């Protein structure tokens, strides 16, 4: 085990606290220091109350000393995207509109993390109302990728991606309506999962699109991701879309490898206009799986443009429904890019919105039956091109920015519409030195299998062992 507290994984720090090797106060102090320095430099931090955080940490230490362990994350400092409501605490959603908003409820996912003993020590920066793939935020400042601060971290869970990658906290909650967990995870070299629609409660999370929103963890390792999902997954009577599925033990089979498993490798539409260096990384990942004993089956995927279109209609219409009052009353308080997208959402005919929802069951049956088929999972690129810079994707600057932005979520958004689980796993670096990642997509509620397959790759390649040059060191 490493001696630097900041470099530990979530699972390692949880174990070290539980065994009394380190205290929650030491771990929390390290995170506070990192967030207060590098967290501000990289624009990852929205707000933090160090005194409150240390008070909670010392309480956790006292409880442990008395033999009381709340749960698997006892005393572990976490911080989340600034859109998870906690009663009595600000939740500003990266916006001006919600500046000063104090919710009266607490998100179910936060309650579950609290019950597991985790500390919630800060609110993390995000894209305005979670509407953007790059991470840009003209109101709160654009977070910077810790692998190279000139590059985007991805959005909309931008601050969470930066904070976990830069070793400022051990894990975080992101949200994913079109790829907002998986993109910043892939772009910052992290593991992130968007579970099956209905697996994780969205109660108390800022809504963007009721039908496409997913809540999930972003972490440094596959085990950490499984550990966090274990805590937050499961039916919630407060969320009408919550599924009545039994939650399995996500870590039980984590080390069992992939021998005898079948992995479908997505070609066709997913390889259109793909940069050769990204294709090379994906091919190499498939080869790693083959060498570990998995059966590799290339699958020619036809155009999924219609799935992205359907997702766009649904998200656009539902987001407009949520925002239309503010659009009427305070249009000047939105950034121009977000306002334009929201106004566009007002234009979709209700008939087509309903068509997009009605087509959904057939689409997921087709994809699972015909594309994943008998395979255990499908290997899909997270992004088809090397990561662009902040300047290249500034909507007010470079004219190529719109095209670039459309490409960013192209490979992730279909799985929001389909509601299928998708795990983002780092798979090396492109020529610009920035991380690349792939998605493992599975059948509904097959998250445990995705973790097992993702872990096998991680163990074999060590891709999650590397830390970015701009990262916090406690020692």
């Amino acid at each position, binding site marked *: 085990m490493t001696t630097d507290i900041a470099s530990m994984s979530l699972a390692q720090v949880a174990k070290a606290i539980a065994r009394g090797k380190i205290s929650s106060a030491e771990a929390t102090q390290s995170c506070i220091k990192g967030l207060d320095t590098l967290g501000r430099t990289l624009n990852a931090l929205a707000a933090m109350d160090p005194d409150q955080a240390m008070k909670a940490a010392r309480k956790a230490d006292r409880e442990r000393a008395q033999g009381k362990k709340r749960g698997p994350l006892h005393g572990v400092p976490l911080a989340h995207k600034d859109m998870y409501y906690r009663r009595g605490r600000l939740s500003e959603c990266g916006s001006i509109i919600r500046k000063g908003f104090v919710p009266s409820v607490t998100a179910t996912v936060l309650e579950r993390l609290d019950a597991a003993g985790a500390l919630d020590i800060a609110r993390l920066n995000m894209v305005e109302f979670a509407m953007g793939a790059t991470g840009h935020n003209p109101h709160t400042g654009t977070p910077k990728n810790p692998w190279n601060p000139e590059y985007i971290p991805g959005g909309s869970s931008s601050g969470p991606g930066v904070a976990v990658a830069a070793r400022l906290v051990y894990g975080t909650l992101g949200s994913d309506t079109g790829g907002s967990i998986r993109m910043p995870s892939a772009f910052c070299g992290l593991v992130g999962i968007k579970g099956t629609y209905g697996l994780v409660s969205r109660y108390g999370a800022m809504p963007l699109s009721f039908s496409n929103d997913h809540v999930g963890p972003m972490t440094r390792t596959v085990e950490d991701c499984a550990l966090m999902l274990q805590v937050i997954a499961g039916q919630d009577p407060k969320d009408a879309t919550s599924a009545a599925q039994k939650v399995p033990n996500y870590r039980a089979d984590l080390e069992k490898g992939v021998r005898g498993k079948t992995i479908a490798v997505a070609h066709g539409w997913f390889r259109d206009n793909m940069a050769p260096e990204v294709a090379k990384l994906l091919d190499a990942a498939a080869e790693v799986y083959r060498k570990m004993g998995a059966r590799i089956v290339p699958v020619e995927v036809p155009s999924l443009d219609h799935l992205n279109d359907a997702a766009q209609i649904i998200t656009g219409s539902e987001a407009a429904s949520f925002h239309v009052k503010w659009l009427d009353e305070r249009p000047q308080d939105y950034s121009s890019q977000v306002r334009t997208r929201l106004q566009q959402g007002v234009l979709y005919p209700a008939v087509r919105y309903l068509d997009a*929802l009605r087509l959904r069951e057939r689409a997921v049956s087709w994809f699972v039956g015909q594309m994943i088929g008998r395979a255990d999972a499908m290997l899909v690129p997270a992004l088809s091109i090397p990561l662009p810079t902040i300047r290249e994707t500034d909507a007010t600057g470079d004219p190529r920015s719109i095209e670039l932005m459309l490409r960013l979520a192209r490979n992730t958004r279909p799985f929001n519409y389909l509601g299928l689980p998708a795990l983002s796993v780092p798979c090396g670096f492109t020529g610009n030195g920035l991380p690349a990642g792939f998605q493992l997509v599975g059948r509904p509620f097959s998250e445990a299998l995705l973790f097992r397959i993702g872990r096998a790759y991680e163990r074999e390649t060590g891709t999650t062992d590397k830390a970015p040059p701009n990262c916090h060191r406690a020692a």
Partner: protein
Amino acid sequence: MTTEDSACAAGWLAAYVGTALPTDQLNAAVQATRRVSQGIGQRADALAMEDEPAGFRLGLERLALERRGAKR
């Protein structure tokens, strides 16, 4: 006038949102919305009348039970 044309009329947008977009933005927004809506409209021709939004969540649960039962 088609469904998309009527819904995407610029005047309707301005009246509904209560604010005027710059012309270039409005055109791009209308054009993109119309293209996407028409595409889904064409796909919807394949739907049975009985297909309804709630079928999606039932479908996820059914597919979870059918583990590895489908043929490519």
